[in-house]
C-alpha cells in the first residue's frame, strides 16, 4: 500500500455512508436526521469522483453527477428545513415520534 488508489477512497466513503446510516437510525430529531442524510449524500459524491478519477478518466460523467447531486441536496435541505420550521410552529416539537399531524 504505497500509493493511494481507488480502494482506499472507497473505504473512506463506505465508512462515511454507514456512519450516516447509524445516525439516521438512532437520532430522533429531524434536524440531526437531516445532517445524517447530508453525510450519506456526501459519501455518494466521493464515490462518483473517485470512480471518475481512477476508472473513467477519459470522461467527465462522474463530475457532472456530483454537481447535480450537490444541487439537488441543496434543494432538498431547503425544503426539509422549511417543513421542519412549519412543523415546529404548529406543534412546538421536531421529534419524529411526536410528529403525527398526518395520521388519520
Amino acid at each position: 500500500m504505497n500509493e493511494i488508489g481507488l480502494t482506499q477512497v472507497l473505504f473512506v466513503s463506505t465508512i462515511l455512508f454507514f456512519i450516516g446510516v447509524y445516525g439516521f437510525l438512532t437520532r430522533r430529531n429531524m434536524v440531526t436526521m437531516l445532517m445524517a442524510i447530508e453525510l450519506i449524500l456526501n459519501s455518494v459524491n466521493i464515490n462518483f469522483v473517485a470512480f471518475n478519477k481512477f476508472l473513467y478518466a477519459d470522461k467527465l460523467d462522474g463530475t457532472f453527477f456530483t454537481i447535480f447531486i450537490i444541487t439537488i441536496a441543496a434543494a432538498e435541505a431547503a425544503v426539509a428545513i422549511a417543513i421542519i420550521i412549519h412543523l415546529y410552529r404548529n406543534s412546538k416539537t421536531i421529534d419524529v415520534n411526536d410528529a403525527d399531524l398526518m395520521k388519520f
Partner: protein
Amino acid sequence: MSASIIIFYILAAIILGGGILAVTARKIFRSAIYLLFSLIGIAGLYFFLNYEFIAAVQIVVYVGGIVVLIIFSIFLTHASGADMQEPKLIPALFSAFAACFACALVILLINNHTFIPTSNTVIEPTVKTIGRQMLSTTEHGFILPFEVVSMLLLAAMIGSIVIALKTKPKA
C-alpha cells in the same frame, strides 16, 4: 510513507472523526459544527484528487449554504445549549450492529474486487472542459439536465417559501 499518503490519512481522519462526532454528539449545535468539519475534510479530499472545481462547489454550497441553513434552523427551533435525549440503548445497539456488519460486508467486497481502469486518453477536469461539456448541445452535452435542475431549484425555492410562510390567523 510519502507525503501524499500521510495527507490522505489525515483527511480521512478528519472526515470520519467529524462524521462520528456529528451523529453522536449530545448537544445539537456541536453536532452541526462537527458536520462542518467533516464537509471541509471532504472538500480537502476533492482537492487531493485534483478536482478543484468540485471542491470549490462543495465549500460554497455545503459549508457556506447548507450548514448555515442548518444552524439557523437550530436557532429557530431549539434551546441550543440543552442536551438532546439519549437514544434508547437496545435500538442504538442494533443500529450499530447493522451498520458495522453492512460496512464490513461492503469493505470485504471492495477489497476482493479488481477494478479495471480505462486506457483511453485522460481529460483533465478543469473548469474549462467542465463548462464546455455542461453547456454543449451536442451528443455528450449536459444542457438538458442543467436546465431541468435549474427548474427544480426554482420550484424548491418557491415551495420552501410557501411552506414556511406564516399563515394569517383567520378573522
